[in-house]
């Protein structure tokens, strides 16, 4: 049995845990710069999480075990997803645990339980958030599957490690199908991770909240776990995108020397993704909830165009 993949695995999970808040910090910093404000620094989200861990928990009187169990489950599921996606190397022992479809289902577990926790307290806000979140998630799903379908047409696989290997080893070709799939994937990522224009992670305005409405009653370590998992979710969705569209630089099997280069490649890619995301968020306002179907409909359209162009052009 080789020890090396297990070390990489643990190293990667540690990187996900630490870099996810820093990535959020980077996005917030960029946003501040673009808006001419002073930023709180790259490490502020990390400090926020640490602070929350030391605070006491205040629970609503009616909260059941679902409410207390959810943060741990959401965190655990997200960490598992972080161990599956090839971020630094394709040589991960956990990578065969789930292909992309199962990976999306792992995020669905987290969403399912957060939605239940939102309904557990019995406030109108929680139910509102759950109802809207499940609506958006159901509309995002077909587009997501179509994007996966298009990607799997090229690499004949839905396993992310395999996709990375196929793309990096093949000759570089500009594929129109992949271009459409990237567009679709960006729109889906925005919807799934609750960024502007679908949801605003910074709002606590009653009628516009979606994700925040569900977790409104959380505090202390529970809130810390949920926030941390949320940050990891954005990080991991970005990683899925990088692995399926821009995998160059991810270390191959049994190649320890590629690892430092892989880290640098990853950092550069994430910096660029951050800039793109901030530009999107700055250019758009949050849309009405019933405009979201159109938004996700266009994601579905892009993905379908990708699939069709594969059959017609490639």
């Amino acid at each position: 049995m080789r020890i090396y993949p297990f070390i990489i695995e643990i190293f990667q999970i540690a990187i996900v845990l630490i870099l996810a808040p820093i990535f959020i910090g980077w996005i917030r910093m960029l946003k501040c710069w673009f808006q001419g404000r002073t930023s709180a620094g790259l490490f502020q989200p990390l400090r926020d999480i640490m602070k929350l861990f030391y605070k006491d928990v205040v629970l609503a009187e009616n909260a059941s075990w679902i409410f207390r169990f959810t943060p741990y489950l959401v965190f655990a599921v997200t960490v598992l997803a972080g161990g599956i996606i090839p971020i630094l190397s394709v040589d991960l022992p956990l990578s065969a645990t789930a292909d992309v479809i199962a990976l999306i289902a792992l995020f669905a577990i987290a969403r399912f339980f957060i939605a239940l926790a939102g309904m557990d307290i019995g406030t109108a806000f929680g139910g509102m958030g759950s109802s809207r979140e499940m609506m958006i998630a159901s509309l995002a799903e077909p587009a997501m599957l179509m994007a996966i379908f298009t990607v799997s047409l090229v690499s004949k696989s839905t396993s992310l490690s395999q996709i990375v290997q196929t793309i990096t080893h093949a000759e570089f070709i500009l594929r129109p199908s992949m271009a459409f799939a990237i567009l679709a994937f960006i729109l889906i990522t925005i919807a799934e991770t609750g960024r502007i224009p679908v949801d605003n992670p910074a709002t606590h305005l009653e009628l516009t909240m979606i994700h925040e409405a569900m977790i409104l009653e959380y505090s202390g370590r529970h809130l810390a776990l949920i926030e941390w998992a949320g940050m990891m979710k954005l990080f991991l969705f970005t990683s899925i995108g990088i692995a399926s569209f821009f995998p160059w630089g991810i270390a191959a099997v049994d190649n320890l020397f590629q690892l430092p280069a892989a880290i640098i490649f990853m950092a550069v890619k994430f910096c660029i993704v951050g800039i793109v995301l901030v530009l999107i968020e700055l250019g758009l306002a949050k849309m009405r909830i019933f405009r979201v179907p159109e938004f996700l409909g266009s994601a579905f359209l892009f993905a379908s165009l990708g699939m069709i162009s594969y059959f017609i052009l490639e």
Partner: protein
Amino acid sequence: MSQFESVLFSIILLLSTLAIIPLFIRRQKLLIYVTFSLTGISSIFAVLGGLWTVSGRVNQSIILPIGLPDLPIHLRLDPLSGFFLTVIGLLSFFVSIYSIGYIKAFVGKRSVTHLVIFYCIFLMGMFSVVLSDDAFSFLISWEVMAAASYFLVMFEDERTENRRAGFLYLVVAHVGAIAILLSFGIMAGAATGFKGFSGYTFDAMRQTEFSVGWAAAAFLLAFFGFAAKAGVIPLHIWLPEAHPVAPSNVSALMSGVMLKTAIYGIIRVTFDLIGDFPWWWGAVVLIFGLITALMGILYAIMQQDIKRLLAYSSVENIGVILIGIGLAMIFTSFEMPLLSALALTAALYHTLNHAMFKGLLFMGAGAVLHATKERNMEKMGGLIHKMPWTAALFLVGCVSISALPPFNGFVSEWLTFQAFLLSPSLPSPLLNLLIPLGATLVALTAALAAACFVKAFGVTFLGHWRGHHSPHIHEVDWFMRSGMILTAISCLVLGVAPTLVINWIDVLPEQLIGDRIAASAGEFGWLWLTPIAHERASYSGPIVLIVVLAVLLLAYILLHVRKSAIHRAPLWDCGFEKVTNRMQYNATSFSMPIRRIFGFLFSIKEQVLKGGKGGTLHYHLKVRDRFWGWLYMPVADISFYVARKIGRLQQGRIQAYLIYSFITIIVLLVFFR
């Protein structure tokens, strides 16, 4: 004891149970204990026989010298019937345990004797449907099953809705049965060239090469007939009426396994009896499956009655199973046996899974109904505090049906997706473009199912009680709990050990299609599921379960090293101070966004009325199935119209009737001398 003896013993045990029921009529409690333990035992024998038949690849047939003269009853036990025997037997075993607790609640209120009698007959009918090896005994068993379930639906017949539902069920079941009868008639006729009756055995049909036209006619009739039983849209209309009003243990059996006999029928007729078919048959099944799955779940989300919601969700799951069968048929007709085996395995796996989680959910709904005397979710809420066991078990069912790993629903959905993802290798460009769109509809369905069951669990068990006065609610007894616990455990086991199950099912695709997936699916041991090849896709339920539990525990322990207090506080009311339980999101408001987006598929009447003193507002919402107006009302109107016209023949005078007979005789003499 051989497999066949075990299965026959189980049927004989049911018959003898029927025989001893009269002894206990006066002692109803004892009657319940005795009969449900006996049906439980007979279900175990059916399961054992079925399990062993599939794993031992048995193919035995016997001829019983009973029945009409020259038409003896043929029975056959092959892996296909063994598989369905296992599914039916397993759920009936769990439900029989549950029933002891559930039916006891009726004692003292009404006689349960006829419920118990028809329960036994119902089980017997289902067992013999899958055993029959000729058209004659198949249809008799089919009718026994339908009639018994009709009487079970009518158990509480003082309510109008029950009688209405029972009538509707009877009508649709018989329209379906006629279609099945005609289909068998065509096949039996084609087998003998329309001479004599010897073609009525399935063996004769199997050995016949049907002409294209007759085969298509037989298939379409059989599909129509079985679709009526399975609740395929647009023939689903009876299902959400009949399943909710039956006693919950019966609803669990009807939704969980009775619908599956129709799936059995479709597989038996297409893959076994006809055997050779063009691809468009598969496309028909696939398209109906897609419509059924999507519309079924959309209707389910709109419901406020928890049992109606579950019934509509059964419609959805039947759709998912048909999608797998349709894909398998398309792959078979293009001679891609490996992919076809994958799709068929997905369909069969989903059949087994749906039996388990839908059984569990109906039993859970029955427990809620038992405790609260309420089916309307708008009035429920907060039951997790008073019924912790039921809540946790119902949650397992919800997680399974929402296709979340590591539970069982996910495995079969995932296999279905894998079959879809392999469709680009089909040699038809049209199908290459259209089948992926089908895959996205399945994705939409699965996601909507999650939304639907967040609603079902969240509104029923979480939050506060929404009704005006809260009744005394208690947890259900241990019989009901253990029935549900066993079902929940099988949901988890089927999700964590898919390779073992696939290994067991594998003989079915091997015999029906000629290829198997277990060799590749279990290539890396029981831990990894790799349906076609490990480069293609892989999934490991056990690892998901173990890693998630490990991280969860680790996080929990690390966060509890330092003692920190948990304060309980009233919930944040935004300074409003008058938050009441009626302000929670309820079943109607939860589904509002989806209702608005997909509203064009329903006929929705929404009214806000101002009335009463103090300007109180009343909100009325009526969401109806569009198919009532589109399909059923016209058919009902036409049949009433035709009946009225024909009714004119009935003069009520003996002379007129004598003239009718006279004319008939003359006509017969002229044409059939």
